[in-house]
């Protein structure tokens, strides 16, 4: 009884030590992770062959079944580990290939690409992940769209760029995408997905070892990014942070709102997956307008229409 209690206390202790607070409970209570047959089996086999740290507990008289229980608990916690930056970039790079493949390839214009990168880096520098190496590219699609792949890969279509009126609007759109990355929205989404499917861990080594699992995760990301869209709450949060980042960068903070107004006026006839992958444009505009009061000093900040037109003008 005493030994079991000790083992249980250690499981709980380790769980709290390694997990990410409430996210752990969120996942546990939603659905228990299914044990993966192949990978999980291999991992467990490895643990059985080579005594690990937990096996040392046997020395203290803890029963084998309790040690196994403890290992199981740690396994769950490993699956809940945040995805590291290198693993995030690895995922993002593969998603980036898919982005070019599905949206008409690269829009080749060195001068315009440089401009997008200069605006994007101005935003990224004052974001909450200023040390991440962000990359910005233009897609050769007339459809209006922009999206962010994990690891700092940001895309905007030429169709969307042609709809914008000034640099503040561009900054607002890019800042929304930067916010998805700083808030790690996609990582959180796939981490939850991985727990509910057959993936036991999303580490760099696991992705290197198991191309099938890697391919499945990329499928999950691209499905969310290009077809279904992310949770509404994440989109609204990206708007909130996006407005903040654009303001920090010194752009007129209403840029994103202004673009959404243009988009709304085209609803029904514009070629855009924005309407299926993003929540109601009307609600987004309304929520952003509620925020703008906090940025009264930013109302004198530039929109830089002339500079923008010098790059995109007819």
């Amino acid at each position, binding site marked *: 009884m005493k030994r079991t209690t000790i083992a249980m206390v250690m499981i709980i202790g380790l769980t709290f030590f390694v997990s990410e607070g409430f996210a752990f409970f969120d996942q546990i209570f939603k659905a228990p992770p299914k044990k993966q047959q192949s990978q999980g089996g291999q991992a467990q086999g490895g643990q059985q062959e080579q005594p690990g740290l937990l096996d040392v507990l046997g020395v203290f008289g803890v029963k084998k079944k309790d040690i196994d229980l403890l290992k199981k608990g740690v396994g769950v916690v490993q699956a809940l580990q945040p995805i590291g930056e290198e693993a995030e970039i*690895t995922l993002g*790079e*593969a998603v980036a*290939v898919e982005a070019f493949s599905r949206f008409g390839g690269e829009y080749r214009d060195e001068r315009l*690409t440089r401009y997008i990168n200069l605006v994007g*880096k101005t935003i990224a520098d*004052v974001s909450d992940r200023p*040390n991440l190496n962000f990359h910005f590219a233009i897609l050769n699609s007339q459809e209006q769209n922009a999206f962010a792949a994990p690891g700092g890969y940001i895309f905007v279509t030429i169709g969307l760029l042609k709809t914008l009126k000034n640099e503040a609007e561009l900054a607002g759109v890019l800042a929304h995408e930067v916010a998805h990355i700083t808030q790690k929205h996609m990582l959180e989404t796939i981490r939850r997905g991985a727990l509910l499917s057959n993936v036991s861990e999303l580490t760099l080594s696991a992705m290197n070892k198991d191309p099938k699992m890697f391919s499945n995760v990329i499928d999950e990301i691209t499905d969310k990014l290009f077809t279904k869209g992310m949770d509404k709450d994440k989109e609204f949060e990206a708007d909130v942070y996006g407005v903040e980042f654009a303001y920090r960068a010194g752009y007129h903070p209403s840029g994103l709102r202004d673009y959404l107004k243009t988009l709304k006026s085209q609803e029904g006839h514009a070629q855009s997956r924005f309407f299926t992958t993003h929540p109601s444009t009307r609600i987004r505009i309304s929520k952003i307008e509620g925020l703008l009061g906090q940025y009264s000093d930013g109302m004198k900040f530039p929109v830089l229409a002339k*500079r923008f037109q010098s790059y995109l003008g007819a």
Partner: protein
Amino acid sequence: MKKTIANVAFLALVFIFIPGLSQAETMYAKKNGVKVTAEKSPTSTVVGKLNTGDQVQVVKKVGRQYQVKLPNGKLGWVFKFKLSSKKPAGKTSGSLLSGLTGKTTIAARESRSGGSIRGLKETTENYAQGKNIDPSHRRSVDAMEAFRVSDGELAQFQQAGSVGDYSGGG
């Protein structure tokens, strides 16, 4: 009792005559290469650069610029959104005033194992081949990652548009 009164009086004196002790706000550089300038204007002489996690004491706040005191006692001005009141997680404090020149960003590509500058990760190559994705799209990702803007070009761009470090009339 007399001793207690004396102690309280001493502490009161400390707080009255050394206001900086109770009010000094410690902040940290959020990224590498944060410029510290001699004057509030970001176009003034650069007196140093901060690395991620470098600590400064905020002396004065004027608009979007903060006057800060560096550990070596020097005063300078920093764009406030390059500072954080929380020490960046997982970052060790680098050497302060890393120099007035030099590259401050280490690209992810350059930090890859094997020292390869060009080329995608093996996972990406395998994935793209498995999905029969046209090689031109892989080259586009390669070009996207290789694309660079220099610190000088970015500063010039921001100054011309009064954005970034040069925003808000700073």
